[in-house]
């Protein structure tokens, strides 16, 4: 047989068949039922969008990680790296601002040209929801509860949803008067939990002591509910107090509905997607080095597409989830 590189798939792409395909379809059906139960309706957006939908002012995947090409008129097109900006664009385009809120669910492949991802897959199946037009803490809690139910339905017994609030960091950054590149450096170190890196950086900065102290503390502000009280001690502005207050409200709602045991807090959780504006979260479980679901609030994203509407959502990384399920199954058998 002639050996030809064209007969296997390009690096980062794969075929799916047999038992695996069957198991994945079953998983998708089960998850889909949870979406219906929560009252979410399907939305489908094209895999190809104009570059601007994912451009740097929207604040999503870095441009060099996008698959780009040109249409006949010379416009730059991209394969979607993420659903949220696409759904936001579609809602701004087709939906009336008077009939909010909208509960929308999506399912499809996303494409990111990066080696950084585990599983080394450049094409990954994502499934998720967007709740558009509801700014309340109830909406935040709904998305968190939905995430827990999805993970439970998938078959995970032990998982954690780690929840933070971008506004805490943002309010502190505003208060500090630091330059944008300095803030970016702090953000990077904070999200790597590198608190000695932050304290090293803070030594050279001109900012009041309590602000610097709060920055140094932030990478360590994670854990159970006691973290909220701890965060209060370092809150240097109204914005920071509001950010904590929001999390307490969410925490109360989660407890009321019996979901408190899944929730932990992390003020150092800062997404590289800059469109997130408030509550933000990642869900973790054993057997995978990366989050199985990520989400949060993005109240300004729809503005980029001409509609002023608050929104919150979650995306599940199906391949990551499947890999965790497989590894956990393998572990219990051995």
């Amino acid at each position, binding site marked *: 047989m002639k050996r030809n590189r064209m007969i296997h798939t390009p690096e980062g792409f794969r075929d799916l068949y047999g038992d695996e395909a069957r198991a994945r379809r079953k998983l998708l059906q089960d998850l889909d039922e949870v979406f219906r139960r929560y009252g979410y309706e399907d939305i489908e957006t094209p895999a190809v969008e104009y570059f601007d939908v994912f451009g740097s002012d929207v604040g999503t995947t870095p441009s060099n990680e996008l698959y780009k090409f040109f249409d006949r008129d010379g416009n730059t097109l991209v394969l979607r790296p993420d659903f949220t900006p696409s759904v936001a664009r579609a809602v701004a385009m087709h939906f009336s601002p008077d009939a909010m809120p909208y509960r929308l669910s999506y399912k499809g492949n996303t494409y990111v040209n990066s080696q*950084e991802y*585990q599983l080394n897959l450049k094409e990954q199946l994502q499934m998720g929801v967007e709740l558009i037009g509801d700014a309340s803490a109830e909406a935040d809690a709904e998305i968190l509860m939905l995430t827990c139910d999805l993970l439970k339905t998938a078959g995970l017994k*032990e998982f*954690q949803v*780690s929840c933070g609030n971008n506004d805490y960091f943002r309010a502190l950054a505003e208060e500090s008067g630091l330059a944008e590149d300095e803030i970016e450096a702090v953000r990077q170190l904070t999200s*790597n*939990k*590198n*608190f*000695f*890196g932050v304290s090293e950086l803070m030594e050279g900065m001109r900012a009041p002591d309590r602000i610097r102290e709060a920055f140094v503390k932030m990478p360590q502000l*994670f*854990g159970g509910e006691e973290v909220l009280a701890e965060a209060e001690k370092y809150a240097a502005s109204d914005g920071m107090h509001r950010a904590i207050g929001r999390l307490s409200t969410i925490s109360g709602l989660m407890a009321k509905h019996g979901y408190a045991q899944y929730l*932990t807090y*992390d003020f150092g959780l800062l997404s590289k997607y800059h469109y997130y504006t408030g509550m933000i979260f990642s869900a*973790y*479980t*054993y*057997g*995978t*080095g*990366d*989050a199985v679901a990520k989400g949060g609030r993005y109240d300004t994203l729809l503005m980029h597409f001409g509609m002023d509407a608050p929104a919150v959502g979650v995306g599940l990384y199906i391949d990551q989830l499947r890999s965790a399920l497989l590894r956990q199954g393998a572990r219990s058998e051995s």
Partner: protein
Amino acid sequence: MRYLTIALTKGRLAEKTLALFEKAGITSGGADDKDTRKLVFTNEEMGVRFFMAKGPDVPTYVAYGAADIGIVGRDTILEEGRKLYEVLDLGYGACRMCICGPESARQMLASGDLFRVATKYPNIAKDYFLNRKHQTVEIIKMSGSIELAPIVGLSEVICDIVETGTTLRENGLTVLEEVCKISARVVVNQVSMKMYSDRISQLINGLKEALEA
């Protein structure tokens, strides 16, 4: 209880680290025995396992969650660029990442000429010259005896770790620029940090206290 798995960088760093763990009350189950051929060492009562790995592999083990915690030099962390939490500076293994070469190369470093840089750390060298010095250079990846490169004329300068500077001096080379400071760091897998938050925080605080004692 699940094991908390710790990856150590083979060699001197591991010796110092095991001594520190001992001081913090965590025995390694025989990992400090130099003659053993075992690969994994278990402390059953504390539910901790240790294994030794080559430096550049430590961030890989941790990023994939095969190890929950890793002890590794900052040079390796920067070079590998994995997604990790970097939570503690152990202080030892201190040295500097430097641009070195013969004194005559100093002038060229300041010029806009295209010169060659030999290094084991192509990512660190690239970041330093492109992003910090805005210079275009040719980077040559080597795997050892970097000092040789400028002597035999493979490159004009090198980017390497400098501890005492003895090797450099003996070969007529000198430190021309400092890139950054290096020391041993504790890195943690991002999922482990959440799932074993209590145990890992306790371990890190134990190490911190042992360092200060």
